[in-house]
């Protein structure tokens, strides 16, 4: 299973963390620090796997952003590598040519999408189309709710006049 997902920028800024195994706040900070040191220093053209504390970290760099997923030693590394890519493709589809800035200002969207992709550290949906559709549906739910709110606010405001 995937124990956690990290998105770290080349400068070591954390853009997303998702923990499927219980790590305390302290451990989380330590893990991030250790792995940043381990992964950001790796040169290009090396393999996408790093061995760390008896676990494997599968990572891939997209532009300035490193996507990392930590798995058990006997898990299938390539499968995870393609889950990362699958996630990136869904993000790309959602944002339209995604860049780091999208993920900074819309980090909550990155979480929504990840939740449609993974649960309990396992892949739940291999279809990009389905994931995109579901996220879009959530967005429209939020929009509808907002319109309702604002229309109610308007009604109240009108009435108050």
């Amino acid at each position, binding site marked *: 299973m995937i124990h956690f997902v990290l998105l770290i920028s080349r400068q070591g800024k954390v853009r997303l963390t998702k923990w499927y195994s219980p790590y305390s706040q302290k451990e989380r900070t330590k893990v991030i620090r250790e792995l940043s040191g381990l992964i950001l220093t790796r040169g290009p053209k090396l393999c996408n796997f790093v061995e760390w504390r008896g676990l494997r970290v599968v990572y891939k760099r997209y532009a300035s952003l490193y996507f990392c997923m930590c798995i058990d030693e006997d898990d299938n590394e390539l499968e995870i590598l393609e889950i990362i890519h699958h996630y990136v493709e869904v993000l790309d589809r959602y944002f339209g040519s995604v860049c780091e800035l999208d993920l900074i200002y819309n980090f909550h969207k990155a979480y929504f999408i990840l939740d449609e992709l993974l649960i309990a550290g396992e892949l*739940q949906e291999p279809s990009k189309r389905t994931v995109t559709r579901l996220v879009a549906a959530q967005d429209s739910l939020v929009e509808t709710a907002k319109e309702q709110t604002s229309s109610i606010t308007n009604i109240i405001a009108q009435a108050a006049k």
Partner: protein
Amino acid sequence: MAMHGMRGLSIFISDIRNCQNKEQERLRVDKELGNIRNRFKKEKGLTPYDKKKYVWKMLYIYMLGYDVDFGHMEAVSLISAPKYPEKQVGYIVTSCLLNENHDFLRLAINTVRNDIIGQNETFQCLALTLVGNIGGREFAESLAPDVQKLLLSSSCRPLVRKKAALCLLRLFRKNPDVVNVDGWADRMTQLLDERDLGVLTSSMSLLVALVSNNHEAYWTCLPKCVKILERLARNQDVPQEYTYYGIPSPWLQVKTMRALQYFPTIEDPNTRRTLFEVLQWILMGTDVVKNVNKNNASHAVLFEALALVMHLDAEKEMMSQCVALLGKFIAVREPNIRYLGLENMTRMLIVADVQESIKRHQAQIITSLKDPDISICRRALDLLYGMCDITNAKDIVEELLQYLNSADFTMLEELSLKAAILAEKFAPDLSWYVDVILQLIEKAGDFISDDIWFHVVQFVTNNDDLQPYAAAKAKEYLDKPAVDEKMVKVCAYILGEYSHLLARRPGCSPKEIFSIIHEKLPSVSTTTIPLLLSAYAKILMHTQPPDQVLQNQIWTIFTKELRYESCIDAEIQQRAVEYFALSRKGAAVMDILGEMPKFPERQSSLIKKAEDAEADTAEQSALKLRAQQQPSNALVVTDQHPSNGEPLPVFVGQLSVVKAPNMNNTEDHSSTEQVLSQENGNLSQVDQQPPSADPLSDLLGPLAIEGPPGATVQYENSAVSGLESGPDVVDGSAIVPVEVGTNTIQPIGNIAVRFHALCLKDSGVLYEDPYIQIGIKAEWRAHQGRLVLFLGNKNTSPLVSVQALILPPAHLKMELSLVPDTIPPRAQVQCPLEVVNLRPSRDVAVLDFSYKFGTHMVNIKLRLPAVLNKFLQPLPVSAEEFFPQWRSLSGPPLKLQEVVRGVRPMALPEMANLLHSYRIAISPGLDPNPNNLVASTTFYSENTRAIVCLVRIETDPADRTQLRMTLASGDPTLTFELKEFIKEQLVSIPTVAQAPTPAPPAAPPTPQIPPNDPAALLTDLL
């Protein structure tokens, strides 16, 4: 885009991004946190929108790495908001900020459950996601049935059911009882008929977890899995959106094959055949393509197929196909594939029969070892370590050594440990082993654990042949200008112990050795200095004749120069004071500073460590298996017994009498002696009688057959009783390196010492270990002897499978009475052994003894003290009797003369005592030359009856190392055998514990030499 209305959040993020440095960022964050705290406190007037915004800000701040220790409640409370936007934020932020052990989470269980059992599909999804991601045991207990219902419900849409499947997986991990429901396995089987591949993928993950826990319950799923795999692999009926770069859901394929690996075998021939066809299809049909993602996806499937083939124990043909594929992979440039190729090859080693074919790729693997990518190096190192055996150990270890020069420093520790273990396990010869370890220390001293150098010391100490070599090597390394401190330690230790063996080589005089070591002293730390001091003391002691200059130099170090006498470090101070005091004692020093006794054989602490560290059980078992095939070298070396007519080192008893006064001198320094004695074994016994330091030996009263011969001994015993150390107490900090493991049964006391003692007297302990004590009592009459073996069980449980077998040499007729199969708890059985001497011979009888205690099967081979001198009867003769016989026996073969060189120098009375102890009587005054000895004895055997033997020894007072010996008797064999026998006593120094090559000790000795054991003294004289 989607950020409408949350301007506050965007502005905050921009602010953070505009911060010039960490300090500014912190200020901005603190300000925001203060603001949020205030807003939350007031609560009133906080709109749901505000709450949402602040909770997002909290998550953002948290991601930046700041502690957010408040506001969790607000996040959790959003979960119960009635509207989707707030609820969604509540769920997501809660599942990011909290983990399963957080108390607040409990507060939410009810709300979450209401959402799960409610009718709102989107709320169900949110709740299932939260539980699936951070649900703990309590969730498992209260929510499992609801989640199961959703998973199986026909009215639920796939988007809910796939979440329910993974949610249930999480709950199952937290509490496996959640699937203890009647008919759950059947429902699982039905789930595998699911058409929606999202639901099927999630269900397959659930199945993998279930079968890994209990495959038997789910065997009905097996054929379905094969069907799913077949459908996917052959791309039948797979919707376009579920193909990934043209490959039908690689993830589902991988998971399905993973599930299949948890079934031990596939019984149904049809299913098996179908599966193998699919696997064959995958193995053959996967090509390397340009597109990275397609390549990765197809190889993810391929590697999983390889794993499944290995698991299913396929036919040889398919296996070799796998090895061939892996061989191809480890040669490609693409690093991921190479990495996985190496890893899977290592896994494949567990499967029998591939070792040889993998060896063919050795060169390729070594290339990967030198890859700039540390991940790949690690895999290559593991593979090399796994594939190493006696045939390729030399090559592999040398490659590892070479790689040490360039390896990434994070690998050095593992690399050097593995090299050390391989060197130890597969060393073709011991000098090579020493070379390897010294190189390791030289190249990676900082990364070498102390165990490794301790072990070298142990090997060198236990193998006499190795000592001069090791000493020469140590000198070579210390001669180098910049030497790692660990190297200084090991070299100083070895030179202290063994440099005297090099004394004749150029540049190896004690003085030179000393200065080489001493040069390093200023640069070493306080933990090393004590070792150097020991080395100095030993060098000084070995310097014969004493060298005044060297002595003064070393004394100055002990006293003034470095002021160790008043050194703040207690260890250094104590050693300096003690060594100084001791080195002024002359001969007594030999007792205390003599060579270290051999170490008992134990499982290598290194190998043990490696085994402990191996998390992978499969690899561990392979490792153990190989370890069994390849016994430790030291074991082989020491497991010899002298049934081959090798000359026997025999104990020289009289010397102990001579030396006894020396021991008395030490009484007023007893505390010093005690500490020092720990360095060199044990002072617990001063007589040659086998020591009984083991407290358990008291249990066997009857075995204490003979009391200590004199009051002196009693006194000495009490003088050292403060030691109470038992045979294993040694100065752990400096001298005895190896941790005490108790995996094998160690004899108590030195078997060789015990044997030699029994050669000179007729009763005592022959052997002892924690479970058994074997005593001997013998009576000799002419050519006959009657021995009684006392077998004493020291434990409260019986010793079973007891077997005693006598392996008599040709000249002895021996009959052992029946030995019982079982020795009851704390009981002693007596087994008489009749001996008849047929003719003269120096060969020795061996007792092959074995017993079982618990799971320990113990087998020992013990020499029996039915030796030549037992059949002698001292016969003093007068000049009238002597000279006629002497003249009548003229010339060979009845009279033999030999000039013996390399004799241990000793005074004439000492030599007389020595002969006397072997029952050869001296007739003083017969020879007019005071430097000569004349002696005689009667020998008894069945063939020869009583025969008088005459001995004449002419010594040269100018050179005590040579003498001329003449032997005469009426039997040519006797003349020869007795001459050889006496010669052995004079020449081959009976270094009992450190026997030189001709007669290795019969069994692994332990650090226990009686301190006035002449053996210990004599070694030092040499």
